[in-house]
C-alpha cells in the first residue's frame, strides 16, 4: 500500500501506429494490426519468423544532435514519448529541473543494433581505433533513462529496471512506490525497446515465435486462439508521468487515472516457462496492495503473447482468482510484443479504456483454445463502466508483475 496516493497525469507512446496515444487508440478500436513482413529476417540463416511490429511516425531529427548522438532508436522512442507525457501533464521546465522529478525507464538490453555494429567492426582487425566516443551511451543498461534525463534536463533520481517483458511494469511500479514514499513528486516511467533480429531469434530458437503466418502478417499473433503459434516481436516506447495526488491537485493537473496497486514476484520453478500458481500469486499480491477484492476488478489486461504455455497458464491463474465473469483481453494481437515497452503501451491503452468506458477485444482471437475458455474473453469493442483494471506482464527469467489502475475520481 502506498503511503501517498499516486496518479497519472501524462502519457506518451511510440507504437507501430505512430507517435501519440490518439493514433494508437484509433487503431486499437478499429481492430488494426501493426504487424508487417520484415524482409531482412528472411536473409538470416535459421530464422523462421519473418514478421514484426515496427514503430512508425518517428523523426529522430526532432532531437538536437547534442542529445541524439548518445541515443540508439530505443532512446529516441523513449525521449519522444517522454516529451509527449511531460507536455500532456503540463509540466514546466522548472518542475523538470526541480530535483523532485525522476526517471524510471528500462529496456531489455542496451542497444543490440549498436552492439552489432561495434562487434562487426571490432572483428575485422581486433581494433578499437574506429570506436566512437558515444558508443557506451548506446549500449549501457541505463541508456534510455539517462538519455531521457539528459534531453529533458531532469535532475532527480534515475532508475533503469531491466526485466525483459516485465520491465515497464516494474518501472511504473517502482516509480509509484518512490512517489508513495515521498522521495519524488513526479516520475517519468515506462520502457522502450528497438527491434533487432536477436530478439525474434531468441524466441524462434525456443519455438516460441510465430512462423506460420509469414505471408499474412496481420493474422498473427493470436493470443488465446487455438491456431496461435507464438510471439511476434515489436518495438516502441510507452511513458507515463506519475505524480502524487497532492501535487496534481495543488497545480490543478488533469488526472487520467490512479495507480492503486503493484506487485512483482519471482518464479524459481523455471527461467523460461510460466507457472499458473506463481502468476496467480502475483495478482493476489497486487490485489492486497490495492486493498481491492477480486469482484471489484472490471477488466483484466492480460500479458498473453500467444504462446501455448503462457496463455494457458495465465488463463488458469485468472480463472482461479476471478472465475469466468471478469472480461479479459490481450493487446498483443494489435501491437505485437514490444518487450520492455509492452507494459506501458498496454497500460496507456488501459487508461484510455478506463476514461472512455470501453473494452478492446483480443485481435485475431477467432476460435478460443479450449484450454483458454475458462475466462470471459472480450468479444468486440464493448462499452461498459470500467472502474478498476489489473494489468499483467510476465518475463523470461521468471519475473511476474501486475499493476492495478483505478478511474479517477
Amino acid at each position, binding site marked *: 500500500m502506498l503511503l501517498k496516493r499516486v496518479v497519472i497525469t501524462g502519457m506518451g507512446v511510440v507504437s507501430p501506429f505512430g507517435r501519440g496515444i490518439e493514433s494508437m487508440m484509433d487503431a486499437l478500436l478499429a481492430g488494426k494490426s501493426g504487424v508487417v513482413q520484415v524482409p531482412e529476417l528472411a536473409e538470416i540463416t535459421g530464422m523462421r519468423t519473418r514478421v514484426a511490429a515496427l514503430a512508425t511516425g518517428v523523426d529522430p531529427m526532432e532531437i538536437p*544532435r*547534442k542529445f541524439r548522438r548518445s541515443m540508439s532508436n530505443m532512446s529516441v522512442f523513449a525521449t519522444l514519448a517522454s516529451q509527449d507525457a511531460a507536455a500532456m501533464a503540463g509540466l514546466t521546465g522548472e518542475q523538470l529541473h526541480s530535483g523532485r522529478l525522476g526517471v524510471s525507464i528500462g529496456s531489455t538490453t542496451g542497444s543490440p543494433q549498436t552492439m552489432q555494429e561495434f562487434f562487426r567492426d571490432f572483428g575485422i582487425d581486433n581494433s578499437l*581505433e574506429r570506436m*566512437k566516443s558515444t558508443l557506451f551511451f548506446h549500449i549501457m543498461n541505463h541508456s534510455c533513462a539517462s538519455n531521457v534525463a539528459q534531453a529533458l534536463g531532469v535532475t532527480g533520481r534515475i532508475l533503469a529496471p531491466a526485466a525483459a517483458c516485465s520491465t515497464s511494469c516494474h518501472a511504473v511500479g517502482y516509480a509509484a512506490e518512490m512517489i508513495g514514499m515521498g522521495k519524488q513528486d513526479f516520475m517519468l516511467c515506462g520502457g522502450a525497446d528497438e527491434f533487432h533480429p536477436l530478439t525474434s531469434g531468441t524466441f524462434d530458437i525456443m519455438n516460441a515465435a510465430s512462423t506460420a503466418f509469414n505471408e499474412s502478417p496481420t493474422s498473427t499473433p493470436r493470443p488465446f486462439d487455438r491456431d496461435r503459434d507464438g510471439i511476434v516481436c515489436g518495438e516502441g516506447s510507452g511513458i507515463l508521468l506519475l505524480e502524487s495526488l497532492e501535487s496534481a491537485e495543488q497545480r490543478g493537473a488533469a488526472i487520467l487515472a490512479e495507480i492503486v496497486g503493484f506487485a512483482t514476484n519471482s518464479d524459481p520453478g523455471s527461467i523460461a516457462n510460466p507457472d499458473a500458481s506463481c502468476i496467480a500469486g502475483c495478482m493476489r499480491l497486487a490485489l492486497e496492495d490495492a486493498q481491492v477484492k477480486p469482484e471489484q476488478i472490471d477488466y483484466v489486461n492480460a500479458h498473453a503473447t500467444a504462446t501455448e504455455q503462457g496463455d494457458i497458464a495465465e488463463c488458469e491463474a485468472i480463472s482461479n482468482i476471478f472465475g469466468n465473469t471478469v472480461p479479459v483481453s490481450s493487446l498483443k494481437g494489435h501491437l505485437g510484443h514490444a518487450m520492455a515497452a509492452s507494459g506501458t503501451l498496454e497500460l496507456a491503452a488501459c487508461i484510455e479504456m478506463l476514461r472512455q468506458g470501453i473494452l478492446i477485444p483480443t485481435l485475431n482471437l477467432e476460435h478460443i483454445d479450449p484450454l483458454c475458455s475458462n475466462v470471459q474473453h472480450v468479444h468486440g469493442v464493448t462499452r461498459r463502466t470500467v472502474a478498476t483494471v489489473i494489468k499483467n506482464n510476465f518475463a523470461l527469467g521468471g519475473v511476474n508483475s501486475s499493476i492495478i489502475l483505478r478511474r479517477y475520481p
Partner: protein
Amino acid sequence: MTDQEIIEQINSSLAEEFEFALNDMTPETTLFEDMGLDSLDVVDLVIVLESAFGMKIREEEAIRKIRTLGDIHTFVINKKRQMESA
C-alpha cells in the same frame, strides 16, 4: 589530392558527422564556440579524419593545439605531405 580537395574533403566529412552547414564553414570557424563541439566530439573528429584520409593522428601533439577549421586544414595538409614524402 590538391590542398583545395583536401579542404573540401575535411569540410564535407565534418559537416556530415556534426550536421553542420557547409556554407557556414570557413577557416576562421572555431570548433568549440562556432560549431558547438565538445570533448566527446573531438574524439570523433579525430576518428572521422583518420577514416577520411587513411592516417593515424590520435597521438599527434599538434592536435591539441587545434582551435579552428583552418587549423585542421593546415594540420591535415601538412600530415598528408609528410606521408607522401616519407
